[in-house]
């Protein structure tokens, strides 16, 4: 028992499709402490969303978790039956999805969708559940929660809807929140607000937060630690300041370099050439080999995660080495 809220060990989630086996998550490990914010960063298709779903056991066919352990407060979630998992979902681990318009059922009222989340886990009557819901809406800064409760999702703006989704996540005071690109669909000012409040929340209540995103600028201000994922694997892991100031993996370096604000005005944007390989058809050796400016014959072997300057890197030739 080492006090980690979440400990993912060598998680492997594969999709068995007609075209072949897609190794969406292929040996991912990380830990999150109480009150800590972990950023899970990578481009589309790298497996970060599937990682999030795997933790909650929401991977649908043709996908399946094929290996590893997921320790939540010491208990291996992968060994639990569906019934026990359901008691954890929405209560001790909560998830916020990317697009709130899709995650809120359009034909049901907000209060219905909130009350059911409360009553699935707490033995209270509907009046109490309504009270809890109203308080949650207040906490995320939604004005006049009474009337809002009786509305339908399409009557809210995008930012408000996402706040509702966050409120739902908070209803049962979870110990861990997994947020999958929750601010991607919102504009920048709202995004900033929500980030600020998320951080405040974690500090105050000791909730661990896994923030999944492709946007480096988001994690820069928010996360304590960061994991960079590529092609189903973690390629770099460490504290946010260290990783972003002095990235060791060429991919991380490329990601940071390609953020527009970092480039000098007038000069062409730095890009990482090429595209992430299809997960069903990974080249042998290092998955980043074909796009890496530092690739060498050694890279035909598969690199393992190595300790380097207090962090973990998956590369034979880390930068600043």
């Amino acid at each position, binding site marked *: 028992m080492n006090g980690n809220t979440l400990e993912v060990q060598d998680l492997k989630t594969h999709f068995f499709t007609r075209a072949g086996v897609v190794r969406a998550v292929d040996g991912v490990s990380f830990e999150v402490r109480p009150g800590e914010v972990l950023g899970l960063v990578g481009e589309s298709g790298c497996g970060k969303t599937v990682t999030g779903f795997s933790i909650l056991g*929401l991977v649908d066919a043709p996908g399946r978790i094929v290996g590893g352990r997921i320790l939540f407060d010491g208990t291996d979630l992968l060994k639990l039956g569906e019934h026990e998992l359901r008691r954890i*979902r929405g*209560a001790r681990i909560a998830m916020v999805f990317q697009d709130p318009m899709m995650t809120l059922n359009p034909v*049901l009222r907000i209060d219905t969708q909130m009350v059911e*989340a409360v009553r*699935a886990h707490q033995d209270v009557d509907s009046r109490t559940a309504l009270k809890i819901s109203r308080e949650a809406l207040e906490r995320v800064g939604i004005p006049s929660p009474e009337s809002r409760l009786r509305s339908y999702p399409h009557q809210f703006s995008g930012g408000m809807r996402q706040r509702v989704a966050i409120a739902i996540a908070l209803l049962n005071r979870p110990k861990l929140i997994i947020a999958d690109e929750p601010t991607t669909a919102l504009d920048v000012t709202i995004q900033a607000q929500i980030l600020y409040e998320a951080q405040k929340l974690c500090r105050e209540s000791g909730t661990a937060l896994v923030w999944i995103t492709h946007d480096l600028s988001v994690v820069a201000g928010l996360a304590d630690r960061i994991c960079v994922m590529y092609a189903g694997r973690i390629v770099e892991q460490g504290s946010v300041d260290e990783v972003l100031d002095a990235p060791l993996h060429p991919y991380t370096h490329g990601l940071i370099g390609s953020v527009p604000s970092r480039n000098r005005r007038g000069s062409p944007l730095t890009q990482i050439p090429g595209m992430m390989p299809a997960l069903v058809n990974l080249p042998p050796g290092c998955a980043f080999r074909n796009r890496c400016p530092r690739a060498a014959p050694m890279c035909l072997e598969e690199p393992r995660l190595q300790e380097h300057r207090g962090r973990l890197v998956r590369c034979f030739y880390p930068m600043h080495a």
Partner: protein
Amino acid sequence: MVFVIRRVFQSLVVVLVMSLVVFVGVHLVGDPVHILISDDMTQIEIERFIQKLGLDRPVHEQYFHFLANAARGDLGNSFVFGEPALKLILQRMPATLELAFAAFLLAIVFGIPLGMYAGLRPESPASKAIMAGSILGFSLPTFWVGLMLIMVFAVMLGWLPSTGRGDFMTWDGLRHLALPAINLALFKMALVTRLARAGTREAALQDYVKFARAKGLSPARVVLVHVLKNILVPVVTVLGLELGGLIAFSVVTETVFAWPGMGKLLIDSIQRLDRPVIVAYLVITVLMFVVINLIVDILYSMLDPRVRLKEAKA
């Protein structure tokens, strides 16, 4: 409210147009006079006969006469029975409605759960069997199924009566209702099943279902509340329109099972060229149709809150 009034007005227009079409059309059907008169009537008697039935007036006069009478509830007398056509139809209506509603209920009660199951587990063998069954269901010609049902259950097994109608809501009545209702329901049940399956499959893939599971809700609640409410909208719309179809299609079942409803009367009237009855049937049916469509529209706006708001803004 404006929405409702507008729809009602539209419906009235449709009814009026249909009555014109029906009347003008039926007017062109053969010459009923020659069927009804006996060979030894004298010319004078024939002319008096024609005058009595009003068949000698110009067409448009007959139409306005018809409309005025229709507004009063008088759609003319049957050439064959001599009784008011409307009365004949209305007498038979309860039987047809009983049959149609029974078939409707059967289609929903069996169709929706079967369809939802097939949608939730599309790869299971039971699901494939259900889909195969549904194709069979709407390929089978209704009248032939009726015959086979009679063959098997009435003649060979002797479990259920083959023709006629028992009293409403009695055990005997239900026994008589069973085969015709199943017969009429089969086609619609197949359609409902397919519809429910398509809707469920689409709904099950939506994010809000995954989110509901992420909240830790029981699968029962996810399916019965989240999925069902979403598929109800398209299903109810189609079902509502299908009810009208059921009433119309009961013509076939009534013929096979000698069920004393409006449909059988219509077929006989077509064959005997009994114009007032044909017109009365068509008017009543069109009216029922329009009313059902209206109710479905209103129900639809109530079930899907997005429609209501859109109309309110318009």
